[in-house]
């Protein structure tokens, strides 16, 4: 049970070949990781197997039987359940309703709510997560929503479970919970197909790894007989160097200074200085207030007290009634750029093309409110070339780009809005692959060398350690650590982030 064979699947989207002759086989009862760069076709394969998309050619065999999977319902019948990369929840439904939507316990069409909620609570408990089944899915944190969509896949009880980047929104502890769930599934003899960008997870969990590149099958390796370097080089077709931040760009001049900033319920009494060309990272557990803190510097939250200065000028003084940071628009005018952590929800204009996504917010083009076609094209070319964004034409819909290229478009938008002073990046590499990640890291370094000061918020500690010059750690709304690069240490950061100790590097103090 649970053996899957894909034979020579091909799929085209318009003129672009997403998959060409991909053959993969998954053994019964294994955890099989599928990896690949942006646009390698991983998600496409999974969606075909899950009945969300249909292949143009090729066949699927399950337990030796040729099958057709024209829709999700058929996939269900075949025992295939899929957790999509994009959060696929109904925000207005309760947790229990979300979990059981595809298989509501009913009698003559009447839902047995008590039964549904009991089973939902049981399922969530067995997963080791504590989420009330009667709350609305839209009110949960992103991590909890992710857990609910996993529960939804488990509720169907099929033999084949596809997890497409299940950890994109989870922090370290929640990832551990997920590990437990995945291993449990294996113990029950189910086939788990695990799509991820995170090398560590793949090597922690999987039995075998299959690599896709540019819509083609590359290789399948036994995890125990392979190494991260090997897999990464299979993925990108070349060797990738692990990135380390160089401090060459960092100057002494203070660009932004924050003192005594507080916002009730989120953070309290935060002070730090940001230097020219510096990359300052913010670490902390989910909900510690680091997101709200940094977002306040872009006018998305309103602090209750404190002072913020930019280039020596006070731009926000809650007591003294100076408020040039009241909204994103005024922050942008001050030269502050921002890239959201929620690309799909508050980043891209999904229905619009690449050009409008990158330049839509730019104020440079207005000549009596009219757009200048040539100037636009030139600007777009400038940014897309410098960021190496891959797209076919300027009027291509942004939603057809891979996650990494969408993220670069967001970065290009922030840069195009004249943000010369400070760039704020929230989770800059969420949901994008290794290759695009290292490109983004490279861009950060380049920008910092040019003198751009950058604030980075990330839930991936390794990312912060490798890209930042200094690190600010937040625990329950208070700063518990400010580390120089020389003191960077994963354990030290974690103990600050969990409130076990405080640590301030000598040079940063005061």
């Amino acid at each position: 049970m649970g053996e899957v064979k894909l034979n020579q699947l091909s799929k085209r989207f318009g003129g672009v070949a997403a998959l060409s002759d991909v053959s993969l086989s998954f053994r019964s009862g294994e955890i099989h990781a599928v990896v690949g760069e942006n646009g390698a076709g991983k998600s496409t394969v999974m969606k075909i197997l899950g009945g969300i998309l249909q292949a143009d050619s090729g066949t699927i065999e399950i337990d030796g039987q040729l099958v057709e999977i024209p829709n999700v319902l058929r996939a269900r019948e075949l025992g295939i359940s899929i957790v999509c990369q994009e959060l696929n929840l109904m925000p207005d439904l309760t947790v229990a309703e979300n979990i059981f939507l595809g298989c509501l316990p009913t009698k003559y069409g009447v839902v047995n709510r008590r039964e549904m909620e009991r089973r939902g609570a049981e399922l969530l408990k067995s997963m080791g997560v504590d989420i009330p089944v009667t709350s609305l899915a839209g009110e949960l944190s992103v991590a909890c929503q992710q857990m609910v969509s996993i529960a939804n896949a488990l509720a169907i009880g099929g033999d084949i479970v596809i997890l497409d980047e299940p950890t994109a929104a989870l922090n370290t502890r929640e990832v551990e919970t997920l590990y437990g769930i995945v291993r449990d599934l294996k113990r029950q003899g189910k086939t788990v197909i695990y799509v991820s960008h995170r090398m560590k997870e793949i090597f922690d969990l999987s039995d075998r790894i299959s690599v896709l590149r540019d819509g083609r099958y590359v290789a399948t390796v036994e995890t125990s007989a392979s190494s991260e370097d090997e897999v990464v080089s299979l993925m990108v077709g070349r060797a990738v160097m692990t990135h380390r931040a160089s401090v060459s760009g960092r100057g002494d001049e203070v660009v932004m200074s924050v003192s005594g900033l507080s916002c009730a319920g989120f953070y309290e009494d935060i002070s730090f200085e940001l230097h020219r060309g510096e990359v300052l990272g913010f670490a902390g557990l989910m909900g510690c207030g680091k997101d709200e803190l940094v977002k306040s510097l872009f006018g998305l939250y309103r602090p209750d007290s404190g002072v913020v200065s930019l280039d020596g000028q006070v731009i926000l003084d809650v007591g003294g009634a100076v408020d040039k940071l009241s909204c994103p628009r005024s922050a942008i005018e001050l030269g502050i750029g921002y890239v959201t952590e929620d690309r799909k929800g508050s980043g891209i204009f999904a229905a619009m093309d690449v050009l409008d996504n990158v330049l839509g917010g730019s104020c440079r083009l207005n000549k009596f409110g009219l757009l200048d076609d040539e100037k636009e094209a030139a600007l777009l070319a400038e940014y897309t070339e410098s960021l190496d964004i891959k797209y076919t034409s300027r009027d291509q819909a942004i939603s057809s780009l891979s996650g990494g290229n969408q993220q670069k478009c967001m970065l290009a938008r922030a840069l195009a809005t004249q943000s010369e002073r400070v760039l704020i990046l929230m989770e800059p590499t969420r949901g994008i692959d290794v290759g695009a990640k290292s490109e983004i890291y490279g861009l950060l370094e380049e920008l910092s060398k040019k003198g751009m000061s950058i604030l980075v918020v990330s839930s991936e500690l390794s990312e912060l350690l490798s890209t930042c010059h200094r690190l600010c750690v937040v625990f329950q709304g208070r700063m518990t650590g400010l580390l120089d690069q020389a003191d960077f240490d994963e354990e030290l950061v974690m103990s600050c982030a969990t409130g076990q100790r405080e640590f301030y590097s000598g040079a940063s103090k005061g």
Partner: protein
Amino acid sequence: MEKRNEINRRERFRRLAETHGIYVIFVIVACVFCIFEPRVLHPSQLLELVDRTSWVAVGAAGMTFAICSGGFDLSVPGLMALGASLLTGFLVKSGFSLGLSLFLMFLCVGLLGLLNGLLITRLKLQPFIATLATCLCFHGITQVYTGNTGTTLSSEQYAALSYLGRGFVFGIPVKVLVVLVVYGFMLWLYHKTSFGVKVRAVGSNEQAARTAGVNVGFTLNWVYVTTALMSGLAAVLYVATMGSSSPRAGDNFDLDCITAVVLGGSSLSGGRGRLTGTLVGALFVSFVKMCLNLLSAPEAVRAMVTGLVLILALSFGSLTSMAMNRGGSTK
């Protein structure tokens, strides 16, 4: 932590104000009208209010489902006028029995609702446009069928219906009971059945619902059949009250229904419907109309007052939260 609770509490209050603010506004508006015109409270006026409310409430119950599914049904005035004309036509012109007439009328209206659904699910038309177009067609059919004149029932044809339209049980108009039963049924459908859950799922996130294995097309087809049948029921109430039909019976019916739904606190973007709110909304809309009638206000004043009341009721949530924030920041 305490501060966070404080924020949660405020947020909860804001939401409460948004969804239940209508009750407060309704009471305020009612008091204002009663002060200006005490005749509002006269029993005959209250009966007229019940008349008006009953069909709007029933139509709005169907509309709540359409809006909750992420769509719209603008064809309800056409359906209601056609339903009323068909019912009287079957009774008077064709001489069918009441039971057969009702059955045939609901059958026709239900099939037209299915047509709406198929246009939306199969031809992928926007609900707004599809139902706007079919509404015109339905009006046209009504005019052809009736020769664009009203039909009045004879007294014996009207006998059975008049109990529904003008009868009382324990001093309560039968229509009120009908509306309550309809709402009971719709609430049950909304909360207790898999159909209800699926309607909300589709309205909340159609793609996700599809991924979760919901048959989206099937669900939406039934939504439009439901709104159509509710329009048919509204037509029955209309005929039962008036003893006649008119090709213009459905005029403004769509706007009244949508207004009732929106006042009731349902989300126009789908996923969240509030049926009890819709019922109050229907009462509210009819009340304002009745008062303006009573005051024999000129058409211009009516339009303006209706608009202003609508703005007031809908902005209640934001107004309270604004007021609260002002209070909060001075602390």
